[in-house]
Every structure is written in C-alpha cells, then in structure tokens.
C-alpha cells in the first residue's frame, strides 16, 4: 500500500503539469528553502536569508509587517465598500446607513475598514519609534528612513481623507477643523502672514484642498478620489520602494 502511494505521488509530482506549476520539491535542504522564497512571487521580496534578530518579536515588535497587513485589509475592505458608496452629498450618508442596516455583513465590513485604518496609524507610529530606538535609520539606510517619513504622512492623509466619507457631523467637523489651519499658510493662505496680493478665500491652498471655501460636495468628491485612487497608488509605489530598499540596504537593521 505504502509503496503504491509513493509510486502515485511520484507519478503526480513528476508529471509535466505539476512541474510546470511547482519548480522545486519539498526536501529539507538549504537549496529548497532558498528556492521557496526566490521562486514565489509573494515571497520573493524577502532575501533568502535574514539576520537572526529580524525574527525576534521583542526586537522588531512586528510593527512594519502589521502596518502592511493593515494596508492590505483596508485595501480589500475598501474595494468592497466602494460597491455600496456614492461620493455625493445627496447619497453618501444614506449609502453608509444602507450599508450598516441592510447589507449582509455591511457593518462588519465598515468596522473592519475603520479599525484597520486606525490600527495602521498606531502601528506605523510604533514602527517608526522602533526603527529609531534600534538606530536602524543609520548608514546605509538614511534614504529609506526618508521614504518611511513620507509613508507616515501618507498614512495620516489616507486616514484623514477617509474620515470625511461617511458625511456625518463627526466627519464634517473633524475635516473642517483639520483643514482650517491651511488658511494660515504663509504666502499662500488668505489669513496667513505675508499673504500674496491676489490670494483670497477663493483661491488659496485651502480652497485647492477643499474645492470650495468650506467643506462641501466638491470636497467629498475630491477626498474620495484622494482616498480611493491617488493616495493608495502613491502609497503602493512608495511601499514597494521602501521594502525593496530594506532588502538592498542589508536587511531591517545592523551592519551591511
């Protein structure tokens, strides 16, 4: 029986179909461990081997990975939410209500999206804290730290633009308060010091951000496009750069 099973297994794993999909066996050798990473599209951003301290939860806190996981969760749940949401002042709020009360698991979907976004803000801050405490930004990783700072800003901006979309009182006033400061931008804000001559409430930086002089329907559409398309695209590009640089700069920390 055992012999027969072995024969069958070999027949399957040696078949052209199997070998066209799986390029390596499953033996316990260093060569296979390396191939496992190199020949897998999802894993190949990893190097074949990493320093031992990169495995230590107490060292890494796993925060960079959690941030990426949270990004993936928000991307998946976000796409699902987009099926039920229209970014217009007439429909936005009622679409969220409809999602909460009538769509199967709609509330759960919305909760997951929101809490994953909050979780991402926490984990990205803690990730930066860990990278600082372990001196992991030092030569040769200076540039990657700079990319990380931009990604931190992007995380805040993604979360902030998403905050407006439910179009309720919480959203409206949080975004009103959050964007009010742009009025006071030196030179380019109409209430800022040294405001340029032609700058008014109707053409300053705040107007560019809000598509109006107060938060309104134009803001909703603008923030929706930032939130769902522009900023996630930018974030994805910079994340690819960030992860690639981690590898090229010799792992998460320590000497190259």
């Amino acid at each position, binding site marked *: 029986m055992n012999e027969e099973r072995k024969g069958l297994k070999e027949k399957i794993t040696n078949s052209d179909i199997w070998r066209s999909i799986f390029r390596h066996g499953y033996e316990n050798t260093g060569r296979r*461990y*390396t191939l*496992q*990473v190199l020949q897998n599209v999802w894993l190949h951003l*990893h190097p074949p*081997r*990493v*320093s*031992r*301290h990169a*495995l230590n*939860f*107490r060292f890494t*806190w*796993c925060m960079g990975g*959690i941030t990426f*996981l*949270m990004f993936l969760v928000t991307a998946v749940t976000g796409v699902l939410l987009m099926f039920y949401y229209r970014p217009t002042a007439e429909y936005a709020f009622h679409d969220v*209500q409809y999602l909460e009360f009538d769509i199967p698991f709609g509330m759960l979907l919305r*909760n*997951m999206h929101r*809490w994953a976004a909050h*979780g991402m803000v*926490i984990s990205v801050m*803690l990730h*930066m*804290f860990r990278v*600082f*405490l*372990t*001196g*992991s*930004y*030092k030569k040769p990783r*200076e540039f990657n*730290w*700079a990319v990380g*700072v931009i990604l931190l800003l992007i995380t*805040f901006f993604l*979360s*902030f633009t998403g905050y407006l979309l*439910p179009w*309720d009182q*919480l959203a*409206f006033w*949080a975004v009103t*308060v*959050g964007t*009010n*400061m742009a009025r*006071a931008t030196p030179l380019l*804000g109409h209430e*800022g*010091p*040294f405001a340029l001559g032609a700058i008014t409430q109707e053409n300053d930086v705040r107007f560019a951000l809000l598509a109006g002089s107060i*938060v*309104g329907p134009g803001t909703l559409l603008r923030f929706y496009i930032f939130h769902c398309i522009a900023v996630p695209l930018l974030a994805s590009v910079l994340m690819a750069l960030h992860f690639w640089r981690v590898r090229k700069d010799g792992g998460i*920390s*320590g*000497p190259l």
Partner: protein
Amino acid sequence: MEHFIALLTKPDNVPIVAILFLIPYFMWLSYRQARRTDKTGVPSDAALNDKVYVWPYLCRNEFICAIIVMLVLGIWSITIQAPLEEPSDPTKTPNPSKAPWYFLALQEMLVYFDPWIAGVVLPGLIVAGLIAIPYIDTNPKGKGYYTLKERPFALAVFCFGFIVLWIVLMIVGTFLRGPGWNLFAPWEKWDPHLVVPLTNVNLSYLFGIRNEQTANFFGFVVVGGYFALGPIFYLWKRGTSRFLQELGLVRYIIVSSLFLSMLALPIKMALRWGLNVKYVWVSPWFNI
C-alpha cells in the same frame, strides 16, 4: 466624570486608549533590552550578521503575527461599531470640534501658537526634522540593537519629541479638552458656559513696554536672541567639544535650529501657564 467616561468609551477613541497601554509597554520592552545591551556589551558584527533562512523561520513568524493581528482586528470589528452621527450640517457646530485623534497634538499646539506656526510651520519642521535625522545623527554606534549608553542625546531628543510633544499632547487633546477647548479634569463636568478670563498679555507688556514699535523690536530681540543661542553655543564650545567638531558647522546649524524650534513649544507652554504670556513677539505682520 460622565464626560470622561464617555470619551474613554467612544469607539473612535479606542486607538488612543490602546496607546495609553502600548506606549508604556514598548518603552519598558525597549528599555529592558537597552539595559541588557549596556551591561553585557554590544553585539558583535558577527552576531548581528548571523543569518537564518527566511523560509520557514521568518515566514512562520509573519504568518503567526498576521493570524494574531487578524484575530484582534476581527474581535474589535465584531464588538465595537464604527460611529455614525447625524448627517453633516454646516450650520450646527459641535462644541468642542475635534480633529481626528492623530491630529490632536497639532490642534493642541493651536492653544499656544497662531495657526500659521502651529498648523503649518511646526508640522513642516517636524517632517523636515524627521527626514533630516539620519543625515544629522553622525554617531555610527547603536546600529541594530537597543542601547541607552551609546546615544543618550539622540534618544532623549527623540523620546521627548515623540512621547511628550506628540503622544501626551494627543492624550490631553483627546481626554482633557472640553467645550471652548477649555481644560477639564476627568472628574469635572463639562460646562459649555464656562467663562475663562482672558488675562493673557504680551511678553513686552510684562516688561513695561507700551509702545508698539518698541514692543515689535523687543520681540524681535527676544526671538532672534533665542535662535542665536545655537551659534553662540557653537562659538563657545567649538574649541573643546569633539562632538561639535565631528558634527561640522552646517549640520550643527540644522541640529540647533530644529532643536530650538522643538523646545519653543514647551517654553511657550510654560510662559502661558506660568506668566499668562500671549505673544512673545507682536509685529504688524505676524505674532509669535
């Protein structure tokens, strides 16, 4: 007390309540590892370069971590509902109006500085300063392990900025600010009609200056003198300090101006709380 409990149990404040526990926990965790490194000696390059296979060791850890995090997120999402208030109404301003929790440190800075500083200049400097960190921190030690001994200045400055000026201000903004952005202790009732006497005066007034031009010049001297402390310290210590010589003039100027800008916030807070100072420098174009 009821307002404080309402704030604590607000769904959107879950992250900030979590931060109350997470930050001390990770401070303790890193402190313990730093102490151990400082006692037993720095790991050798060979130890830091000791490699293991990503598959299965790292992938296994990532997998376990992802499962735990998804479990936590799942429970969080099932038990706590995302908030949805009344439809937006531009004519009904809630009091207090708060930004999302991660911007509350910035909103808190608005108490002490005008919007162009608190909302534009200081955030810009925070970003510029963060990006500059690897280029101005020339200390080659402490790369790849926790330590206190090898980089005390860098750690002190960053922790002060991150923990005190970012996290603590965020917590104050979340839990202690009520109607009119007034401070309310957790046990106090939020009183929307609370009248706080506006007795703040400008620094020049405290020094007995009543003339506008003189006040403007006085403010310029105080603020200019404050930022001149950097170069003065450099000229004074240049000959004897190896740290300054290694840093070089350009890096030093960047470090000192960023450092002084950061300290300007706690100094202004102290002036406000202690002496009711409104502005340090009042000019026809801007106030600081």
